[in-house]
C-alpha cells in the first residue's frame, strides 16, 4: 500500500514533466544494458571460475615462497622465477608485483581471451543474439556494451590478482617501506600507490587482447572456436615475440611492452615503454574495434 502510493503521483507528474526528464531518462536507459551485461557476465559460472583461478595464483606463489624460505634462508639464491620474487620475504607487498608479473604473460590474457571471444560468438551460439538484436539492442550499442564489459573484466581480473596477492602477502610476510629497482626507499603508503598504478597498467595492457578477441568473436558463430582462436593467437604472438629474426615486427606485437609495468617501480619512473605500451594497446583497440564494428554491423545473423 505504502509502496504504491508515492509511485502514483510520481507517474502523473512524469507525464507533465516529460520534456525535463527526457535527457536523464535517456542516459539511464543507455546504462541499463551495460549494467545488465555486467551482471550477466559476472553471474556466469565460467567467469567466476576464471577469477577464482586468478585469485589462486598469488596464494600458490606466496605459499611456495614461504615454504622455500621457511628455514630462514633468502629466496634470491635461485635467481629464476618472475620479477621481484626474491624480495617477497622482506616485504609482502612485492607479492603483488610478482603475482602480476606471473599472470600477465598467460593467465590474465587467457581469461580475457575467453570472455572476449565468447562475447558475441557465445550469444550467437546460444541463439540469444537474435533476441537481443530484435529487442532491439542495436548492433553498435551491443558491440560497445560488450567491449566495455570485457575492458571492465580486464580491470576486475587484474584487481582480483592484486588484492589476493596483497592479502596473502600481508598474512605470510612482513609489510613495510620498500626499495625500488633504482635502489631508493619509498614508504609503504607510496608502495601501495605504485601497486595500484601497476595494476592499472597491467589492466590497460589487456585492452589489445580484448579488442582482438571481440573481433574474432564477430567472425564465428561458435563461442568455443572464438575462445580457442583468441587464446591460440595469444600463445602464437608470445612465441613469435621470442624469435630474434622477427625483431622488426616485434614492437607491433600486443604483448611486446607488457612487462614495462616494472618501470613504475623505478625512481624516477621510466615512462618511455609504458607510453609505448599504452599507445600500442590503443592502436589495437582502434584497429580491431573498427574491424569488429565493420563486421558485426554488416553481418547476417542466421544463428
Amino acid at each position, binding site marked *: 500500500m505504502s509502496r504504491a502510493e508515492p509511485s502514483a503521483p510520481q507517474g502523473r507528474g512524469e507525464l507533465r514533466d516529460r520534456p525535463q526528464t527526457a535527457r536523464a531518462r535517456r542516459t539511464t536507459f543507455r546504462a541499463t544494458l551495460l549494467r*545488465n551485461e555486467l551482471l550477466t557476465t559476472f553471474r*556466469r559460472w565460467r567467469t567466476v571460475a576464471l577469477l577464482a583461478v586468478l585469485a589462486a595464483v598469488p596464494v600458490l606463489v606466496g605459499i611456495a615462497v614461504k615454504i622455500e624460505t621457511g628455514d630462514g634462508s633468502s629466496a634470491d639464491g635461485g635467481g629464476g622465477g618472475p620479477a621481484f620474487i626474491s624480495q617477497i620475504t622482506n616485504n609482502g607487498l612485492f607479492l603483488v608485483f610478482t603475482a602480476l608479473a606471473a599472470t600477465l604473460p598467460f593467465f590474465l590474457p587467457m581469461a580475457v581471451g575467453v570472455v572476449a571471444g565468447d562475447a558475441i560468438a557465445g550469444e550467437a551460439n546460444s541463439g540469444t543474439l*537474435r533476441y537481443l*538484436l530484435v529487442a*532491439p539492442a542495436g548492433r553498435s550499442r551491443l558491440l560497445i556494451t560488450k567491449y566495455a564489459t570485457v575492458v571492465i573484466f580486464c580491470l576486475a581480473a587484474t584487481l582480483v590478482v592484486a588484492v589476493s596477492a596483497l592479502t596473502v602477502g600481508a598474512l605470510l610476510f612482513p609489510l613495510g617501506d620498500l626499495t625500488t629497482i633504482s635502489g631508493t626507499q619509498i614508504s609503504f603508503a607510496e608502495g601501495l600507490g605504485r601497486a595500484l598504478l601497476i595494476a592499472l597498467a597491467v589492466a590497460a595492457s589487456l585492452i589489445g587482447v580484448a579488442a582482438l578477441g571481440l573481433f574474432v568473436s564477430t567472425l564465428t558463430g561458435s563461442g568455443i572456436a572464438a575462445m580457442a582462436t583468441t587464446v591460440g593467437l595469444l600463445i602464437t604472438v608470445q612465441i613469435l615475440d621470442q624469435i630474434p629474426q622477427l625483431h622488426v615486427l616485434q614492437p607491433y606485437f600486443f604483448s611486446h611492452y607488457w612487462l614495462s609495468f616494472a618501470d613504475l617501480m623505478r625512481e624516477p619512473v621510466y615512462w618511455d615503454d609504458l607510453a609505448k605500451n599504452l599507445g600500442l594497446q590503443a592502436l589495437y583497440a582502434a584497429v580491431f574495434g573498427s574491424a569488429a564494428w565493420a563486421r558485426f554491423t554488416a553481418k547476417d545473423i542466421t544463428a
Partner: protein
Amino acid sequence: MGEVSAGEPERREARDEAGERELGEARDEAGEPVIATRALTKRYRGGQLAVDGLDLTVPAGSVFGFLGPNGSGKTTTIRMLMGLIEPTSGTARVLGQPMPRATRAVLPHVGALIEGPALYGFLSGRDNLIRYDSADPSADPRTRRARVAAALDRVGLTAAAGKKAKAYSLGMKQRLGLAAALLQPRRLLVLDEPTNGLDPQGMREIRSLVRELASDGTTVFLSSHLLDEIEQVCTHAAVMAQGRLITQGPVGELSAGARGRLVVTTPDPAEAARVLKEQGVGDVVVADDRVTGEPPDRDLAEVNAALVTAGVRVRGFTVQRASLEDAFVALTGEGFDVAG
C-alpha cells in the same frame, strides 16, 4: 481425439471472428499494411536462392498464417523482416518503415519468437526476461519488474519464474520466449512455430492468447507447419514453396479455391461407385464402405436420387469442406511433407 472434437466449435468461432475482422479491415483499407515486401530476394553466399522475389502484404489487424514446408524460405523471410539479414535485393517495410534501416524505430513495437526460444540457462526465467527487456532502449526500467511479472503471468510461468531456465521443459522455454515477445504492448507479433513442444492444452492456450492479442488490435504473423492450426486461428494466410510465394489472401478464399469432396457411406460401394461415375463424379475412390469423389456441377440431390433409384443403400451422403491442406495440395501439387 478429444482435442479434435473440442477443436470443432473453436474453429467455427474463429471463422466468425475472421468475418468480423475482414469487415473491420475493409474500413481500414486506406491504412498501410503492417508488413509489405516488394520483390524481396535473398541469395546466400553459397549461391543458394532462399527467397525469390517475394511480394508479401500483411494487412493491419489480421492474424496472418505463413505456411510452407521446411526449407521453403519462411525463416529467412522472417529474419529479413526483423533486420537480422540484409536482403540481396528488393525492399521490406514493417509498420510502414523500411527494414533493416529503421530497426531502432520499428522493433520496439514488434514482439518476436524466431526459430524457437533462446535463453540463458544459468539465469532464472525472470532474469532472462529482465535481460531482454534491458536490451530494448525504449523500455522504461522503472516499470521493468512489473512488466516482466505481467508477461510471466500471461504465459502461466509465474510459479516457475525463479527457476533456472536450463531446468525448464521445452514447453516452458517456449512460453518464456512468448513472454519475452509480450514484455511491452506490441503492434505486431511475429511468432515462428509458437506451439512447438507444447502439449495439446498448451497449444489451446497459445491459440486463445493469439486470439486475445488479435482482438486487442495486435497484428499477428504466425508461421507454422500445422495447417489446421493456421486454419483455426488465422484470418489470412500465405503459402511459400521453394523460396517463392504461391498464394496469399483471406483463409476463406484460399480454401474455397480447392473444391470439397463428395463422401457417400454405403454397404454397396461397388454399385455406388458405378452410379456416381455415371452421374459425372470424378476421381472416384472406394475405401471399405466409403466412396469419395469430386462433386459434379449439378444438383447433388439428383445424384443422391440416382443412387437410391439404382438400389444403392445410402447411409451417409455429405460434401466434406475443403481444408487448407487440400488447398495447399491443389496449389503445390505436392503433400505438405512435414509430420504433424
